[in-house]
Every structure is written in C-alpha cells, then in structure tokens.
C-alpha cells in the first residue's frame, strides 16, 4: 500500500517535470527570441534586454530551465504583457468561475452517466440503452460551442427560462449562481457524459457475467441491489479512471464553453490572451491546467484502494 502510493507519487512528479520541460522548450524552439515573445509586440530593445537579464536568458539552457522551474514552483509565471499584472494573480481572480463550472459539470455528467450506464447495461438493446448510446454518439460529435449556442437559443432567448450569458458568484445566492451555470454545464458535460456512460455500460456488462452476480441473484437480491451494490461496486475502477482521464476533455471544453457563455474564468483569460498575443498567460495556464489534470488523476489512482479493497494487496 505504502509502496504503491510512493510509486504513484514519484511517477506524477516525473510527468510534471516533463510537462515543465515541454512547456519550457516550446518557447525556446519557437522562431524569434524568447525575450521578444515574452515582452510582446510593442517592446523596446531596452525592455527586451531587461527581460533577458531578469530571466537569465543569456545563461546556458539547463540553467535557464532550472531558474524557470524554480519560479514556477513558487507560483511565479511571469507578468502579463497586456496588463503588467502577475499571471498568478490573474489566474487566482478567475479560479472561482472555472471551478464552479467544472464542479457543476462533473457532478451532473457523472451522476447521469453512471446511473444511465448501469441501467443501459441492465437492459442491453432496450429503449434506455439505445437512447443513451445515441446521446453518447452525438456527445462525441457535436462541438461544445454549437451545443452551447443551441441551448442559449432555446432556453434563454426563445423560452426565457435561464439567463443568456455571464457568471454570478455564489456569494450572491445559490440560485443566481446555479442558474447561470446550468446551460454551460449541460453543454460542457455532453462529451464527458458520453465518455463515462460508454465505459460504465461496458464495465458493468462485463461484471454482470461474473459468478458472484449469479450468486446474488440466486440469493434473491433485488435487481437494483444486484446492479448498484454488486455490479457497480466491482466496475468502479474503470469508471473512476475514465472520470479522471476525462478531465482533459473537460479542460479543453472549459476554454470553449467560457467563451460561448461569457464566463470570466481561466478559459476566457486564455482566449483574451490569444487576441492580445499575451504569451506568458498562455504558458502559465498551460502549466496550471496540466498540473490540475495530473493531480486529479493521482487522486483517482489513490482512490482505487477505497473503491476496490482487493487492490490494497
């Protein structure tokens, strides 16, 4: 158990170091000097020289990487070209909106997908199974921004049930906060739902063929108890894995969803950075999102032992 956790922690650190190396080299392999890219289009030669000195860009590449990595570890991602504000500060301002959107999406998508996937596996080929698999096929194919505009058009512009765009912090009240997040979470969650429901269905189908399910049935367990107690529990590991891996899908979707729904989160920050050619922000967001993805997947791996005690040995 302890060795397993230690191994996983080490692997995570290695992956993070490589992510850092890739992000670092990206800037250095690009055409034009790194200092000129970080300083932006309107920089004076003096500003570029200053950045060269500050970041030690005249030193050997491995030393530069060391300096950069040390800064990143302390949360220093440089300053925005456009506003002159440290990138970390900008990201911290935007975190509540992005975390709200992601949490609502994960809760909604995982609940619907796991319940749906289990019930679909219970009656393979039935109406629910066919409907869910059709939704899954659509979820993989319809881009999140098209779904987003469709939802806005139907539920906000035509029916006027929900607000069109924007974000309200949770301190302004639970319903105002949630009502602004329902449509974005639905749009963002569709692809995620598709992924999780397919895996859940496949994993539960496999478990349903096991001997202990037949035993449970012989014992007289109700179908719901068979499904959710015996089958889902044993199918838990692949489902948890895909919920973790799907975070990558979610992060890409967040950037698009925040743009469609005008939510002032980290995705929106990134898109504004594209327009302003503000590379330090793009770089910082890349490191932070990759870090979040890796850490979440580490937690998922460690949760295996809770889901399935057999793994502890």
């Amino acid at each position, binding site marked *: 158990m302890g060795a397993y956790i230690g191994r996983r922690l080490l692997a995570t650190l*290695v*992956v*993070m170091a*490589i*992510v850092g*190396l*890739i*992000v670092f080299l*990206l*800037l250095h392999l*690009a*055409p034009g000097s790194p200092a000129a*890219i970080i300083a932006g289009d309107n920089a004076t030669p003096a500003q570029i020289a200053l950045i060269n000195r500050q970041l030690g860009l005249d030193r050997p590449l491995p030393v530069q990487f060391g300096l950069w990595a040390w800064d990143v570890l302390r949360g220093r991602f440089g300053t925005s070209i456009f506003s002159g504000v440290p990138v970390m500060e900008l990201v911290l301002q935007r975190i509540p909106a992005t975390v709200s959107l992601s949490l609502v999406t994960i809760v909604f998508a995982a609940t619907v997908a796991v319940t749906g996937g289990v019930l679909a596996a219970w009656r393979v080929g039935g109406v629910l199974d066919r409907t869910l698999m059709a939704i899954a*096929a*659509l979820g*993989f*194919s*319809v*881009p*999140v*921004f*098209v779904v987003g*505009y*469709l939802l*806005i*058009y139907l539920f906000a*512009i035509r029916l006027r049930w929900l607000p069109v765009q924007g974000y309200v912090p949770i301190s302004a009240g639970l319903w105002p906060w949630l009502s602004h997040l329902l449509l974005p979470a639905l749009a963002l969650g569709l692809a995620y739902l598709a992924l999780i429901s*397919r*895996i859940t269905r*496949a994993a539960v*189908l*496999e478990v349903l063929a096991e001997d202990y399910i037949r035993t449970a049935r012989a014992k007289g367990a109700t179908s719901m108890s068979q499904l959710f107690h015996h089958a889902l529990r044993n199918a838990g590991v692949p489902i948890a894995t895909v919920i973790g891996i799907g975070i*990558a899908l979610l*992060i*890409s979707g967040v*950037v*698009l969803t925040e*743009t469609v729904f005008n939510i002032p989160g980290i995705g929106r920050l*990134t*898109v504004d950075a*594209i*327009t302003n*050619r503000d*590379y330090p922000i*793009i*770089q910082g*967001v*890349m490191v932070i*999102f*990759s870090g979040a*993805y*890796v850490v979440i997947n580490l937690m998922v791996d460690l949760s295996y032992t809770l889901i399935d005690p057999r793994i502890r040995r």
Partner: protein
Amino acid sequence: MSDAVLPAAAVPVRRHGLARFWRRHPTLVIGGAVIVAMVLMALAAPLFAGDPLAMNPMNRLRPPSAQHWFGTDTLGRDVFARTVFGARISLFVGLSVAVGAVAGGLVIGLLCGFYRRIEAVVMRLMDGLMAIPAILLAIALVSLWQGGVPVVILAILIPELPRDVRLVRSIVLGVRERPYVEAAIAGGARTSKILRRHILPSTIAPLTVQGTYVCASAILVEAGLSFLGAGIPPSIPTWGNMIAASELYLALAPWTIFCPGVALAVLVLAVNLLGDGLRDWLDPRLARGL
C-alpha cells in the same frame, strides 16, 4: 446447360452479399456515404456554391430563401456558399492530421516497441504531452509559430501523437512475443525486415480505425481553434470562423451559427460512425466491449 445459368445466378448472390454487408455494418455504410457526399460537394464547390467572399451590404442577415438557401451573414455574404467552402478546410485538416498522426505514431511506435532505450525516453515524453490539454497545447503552438493552415495542422497533430504511439507500441509488444516473430529473430532476419514483414501488417487494422477517430477529433479541434481566433485566419471561410463572426447575431439570425454548426456536427458524426463501423468490421473482438 448449367454453365449458361451460372452467370445469371451470380448477380442475385452478389446483391445478397451487399445487402448483408449493409445489415451487418449500417454505420459503416451511412458514415461512408455522408463523407463521400461531403467530399464531392467540397471538391465541386466552385461549380455550384457561388462566391463565399462576395459581400452585399444591402442584403445583411437575411433569413434563408430561394435565393440564399442558408440566408446571409452580417456582411451580406451567402451562408450556403461559405458552408460548402468551409467543408474544404475541415476535410483537408481532418485528413492531413489523421494521416500525419498515424504515420508519425507508426514510426515512433515501431521504434519504441523494438528498441528499449528509445522507448524509455520517448514514452516519458509522450506521458508529458498527454498531460497537457490538447487545445491549450495547440493554442500555444499557434500563437508561438503564427501562420496559416500548415501551422494549425501541426498544432493539432502534435497533441494527437501520444495516443497513436501508445497504440502501435502496445501492438508491437504483443506481436513480438508470437512464435513467428521469435522464429524470424532466431532465423537471423534483419530488424528492419522483421518490422516491415512481420509486425507492420498487424498494425494496419487498428491504425485505420484509430485514424478515423483522429480525423474526427482534428475536425473538432480545428473548428474550436478557429472559433477562438487561434486557428485559420478569419479571411478564409471555415465553420469555426463563421460561427465566431456571427456570435452577436444569435437571436437575430440564428441560421448564421446553426448552418455551419450542423454541417460540422454531421461531418464529425459521419466520421465517428465510419470509425465505429470499421472497428466492428475489422476487429470484432474490440467491438464487444463498447
């Protein structure tokens, strides 16, 4: 006598085979048909679609009509012409990324499966690449390198690579334990010959399937990048660019967003269906799970 009957009887038998193929692999046929139709439309676009760039300020945001099947956008441009021309970029980017990623994955994966030293380094690199969300990596690449379609293709291709490399490597690791590969090694065959003659064939079916999924994903990412303003320059009509330019007119002229949006969804769905169909057809063992 019987010889004369045979050719006539052969026709119904053949038709029976096609009908059976259709019944067994409907997704393959539907997906393939839609893609063929879209490719033909995209190729013949200059012949029938009209000018996608012609502006007409007197004719802004008109709803669909006999003259403008999909209506007009905020500059009075014909949405139908732009949608048809937009298919060219989507198909070109999708196909280029699929071919590039599969070819790259094949070469790197084969090398990794056979040379342990390369494998250790390359697979760690792939782990790192996989941890960076694809669209962010693509945004970073596009904003660093600037430029048009080739840069966008490369920026979409690089984040797609790790999955293909992993797939090929896992196939190679499985196949190289087989007796016929061990026999070839024992017989003193050169590594390059073993890779080409004995291992490459096993990768063709799974890579074909994987290629269609990469293509679908690339079409989605290209549209997303263009929509965010980090993709193809706005002067070129692409589905993502069209939607981005019409953002403000959702309530006033929904056709400016939903026509390219539906085209995009239909194409990606068709490519995904083709992929599912190919998977069931080429590798029935894989099909049972999902």
